């Protein structure tokens, strides 16, 4: 219960932050979410490409990002 309360506070703080940044936010009614539910609006619109390219970047760049934990092997080439 306490956790939920804390989360609500966090959420409100986030909203205040966003509003103070001039972003109209935090009160999008369900019937206003048509655009948000379009496939092109997905956070990751092409997960297959993300996976494939991420594997390439991971074997050629020094920072692994957050791919650790998803395998990928050594990339020792």
């Amino acid at each position, binding site marked *: 219960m306490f956790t939920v309360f804390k989360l609500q506070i966090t959420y409100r703080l986030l909203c205040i932050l966003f509003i103070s940044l001039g972003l109209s936010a935090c009160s*999008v009614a369900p019937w206003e*979410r048509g655009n948000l539910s379009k496939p*092109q609006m*997905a956070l990751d619109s*092409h997960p297959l490409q993300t996976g494939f390219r991420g594997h390439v970047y991971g074997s050629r760049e*020094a920072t*692994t990002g957050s791919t650790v934990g998803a395998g990928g092997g050594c990339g020792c080439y």
Partner: protein
Amino acid sequence: MVVVAIKKKCKKKHIPDSSASALKALTTAAIILPGMMPTVEAYENEVTIQYGHYEEEERDLYGMVNDGQVDGTLDLGAPVGIVPIKVDKLAKKKLPSPKPITVDSLFLQAKVSLSDRLKFTGNYSEDTWSGASPIATAPVGFGSNNLVQETVNGPVTGASPYLENPKPYFDAQYNPLRLDVNHPTAPKRIYSQDDQLVHTLAMASPETRKQGDFKLRYEFNEAAIDVGGGISIENDYESWFVNWGGSLDLNQKLTTLSFNQSYTNSTTSALLDHDAYQYFSTFAYKDQIEQGTPSVTLGESTHQTLFGEREDWSTTLGVTQVLSKSTLFEASMNYTNSSGYMENAYKAMYVFYIDPNQDPTKVPPGVLTGDTRAFLEQRPDERNQWSWGFRLVQHVAPLDAAINLNYRFSLDDWGINAHTIAMDWVQPLGRGWTVTPTVRYYSQDTADFYHPYLISKHAVGTEEENYNNISENNFSSDHRLSGYGALSGGVVLSKEFAKGLTLEAGFEYYTHEGSLKLGGDGEGSYADFNSYSANAAIKVDLSTVGRAISYGDHSHHMNHGTPAPAGVMFAHMLPKAGEVMVGYKYKYSRQAGDMLQGNDKIPDSDILNSTCGGGACYVAPDKMIMHMHMFNVMYAPTDWLNLMVMPTFVDMSMDMRDLAGMNNPNRVDDELGYAAVIHASHEHMTGGLGDTNLSALFKLYDNSAHHLHLGLGFSAPTGDVEIELRRTHGEDLGLIHYGMQIGSGTWDFTPNITYTGNSDKWSWGTQLSGIVRLESQNESGYRLGDKFQSTAWGSYNLLNWLSMSVRGVYTSQGALHGEYNDVHSPIGPMDSPESYGGEYYDLGFGINAMIPQGDLAGNSLSIEWIQPMEDDVNGYQLEREGTLSVNWGYMF
């Protein structure tokens, strides 16, 4: 076969134009309300197959590859006191630069809803790579990449991937000097400062990595938890991992909080480069290196393995927020702690030992001479990385597009700060098409312990003294730890078909340059490289298809009894115009046991006394395994014609053994024999995209009891036939064994004719098929033999969902024609063109299950084991142990 047959007449109505897709989006929104985030996991039952290819362009070696055209012995008549330069007595032949790294990847994914709330995702992936990559760096004036030489009349032998001049020169400020000899007949030495660096490249034989992993997700109304895990296996690296996490939706799903944690445990067991460990010091790792079992032939161990353990803990926190009706924002934070062996066991560091107190009479004024040693790289045993990521997804109303902006900053205690900025423009085009141009920029700082090479101002001494005289505790010349920037751009094209079938293709070109580093000060241009990656994927949404097809129509598949046994190709036709089928078939075959000549088992002495590819025989195959993944898309434009495309992905491995009697001094002292024994101590592997079959099936006769069809097809040579082994122990074996090339390399004609019949609980069938090579040779100079196969089977329905089959198979295949037209050193019977093909008799036992009702209705699984009964081989060949074929099907 993943069989997804779809009937046109009852397909789901698809609304292609953009106004309709807006309507569709609204409808979708209404269905998933209140306000669920758009998610890529919208498909609850989905199968995905993806093939990818990565290839680097050649690196600039500043003319250091085999450009020396020196004839005969050269005595430089050096000035007094200076060590004469030893120029190789061998004339060098200009050979092409080593092939750059290429990687072929396969990815298979199945998403299944186990219940309304429980979702399962299973992934399988496989990569095979080969080619040359940098192992160390040195000034170009020292002459690295003395890779391959050819004697005037003899075989190709190789020098070590090492510096040509291990006693290089420096000026008084320790800047590298290049020594030029202005005329070979009247030599005069010219020293000039040359700071240009160059990589030393080493070629790797093909290697394959395989990974299986899964994720289980349980969804509550406003939360989800997931657990997952997997394992990744390579010859020299094995890791297993587990992860867990969850997400919580708040405020009518306008906000989502997420948490993920993972643990990865990795073990390195690197077979050290046999050439390299003779002069790459492994002093620091002496407690981590194990000697291999001594070779019976050589009486000594032929390999050393370096072992290392590594652990990674990673935690990610994220928040996703709907900012407005057309804006979505995500922020995430990751912390990763890695500890243990994080080195790359194949990378080395050159250290030049320069005695500051050199005898001035032995060097020209202002010139210092040094000694070269190389050490395996040494990285810190711990790394802490933090990263913060921000993403904004904005709907662009006039074009109904979305712009996806992503920025990530990461820093670690190795000194690497990195920035990544990426932008995707996701543009739906109508009719199911989406095009997405992508651009990405990455920049990283130099790791604290990165150096192209090191200088030690001490005279060279014992290995231990040399190691202790390195000023750094950690050092690496891996250019991936240098400061650089990378700019890449690409495009993704996808097309969603009405039937729940999506095709997707992506391409990206990538430029790595020191000068692109943010703020300048990046690594020199010698480390620059360009690469490209391309991939294609097919996704089948089983839920859409399932909803679209009425269950009662399944019966048409039953008209012709149970499906043919799993190992029979081209046996099934779609009976109705407009139907589409997507399928997957897996085949495993194994050879092991005795060596055969004709149909007799023979002792090794027979092979030892014969010839292999025109030369002596040293080794024999001990075990050969092939895995083949076949995918097919089949379409029936009319009810008497089916068109089919079948790409394949193949990987193979071969273990060899020394022939008994090889420990004869004549054989072991033979350089090629020695190299053959070294090769026999480890597995050879190949893999990648195989040949692609394009076929048309014509229905000739069909009633409820009998069916006859003719197949006419071509096999396109998409599989590689130029795979090479790495040079080892000074010997370049060149192209790998014929049987381990992935494709045929020729356009082939693949006709077949199939008859099937059924009565009550019995089904039967017969098929004649062939492969005719349409070209006299492939690009490597040979062609495979033609092939003919006949088979007949019978099956009986034990239960309404279960049947068993028995099948006889006769196969005849010709020997190889021609031979390799490039560097290839035969070492065993598998290198003889005449030791391919033969006549084979097999018996197949199959089981076939079809689920007629319930949640899994329409699924079928067929398995067949093919047991060899008799072999009559051409030349000398390894006995076959059998073939397993598996078809998984989903029928409508």
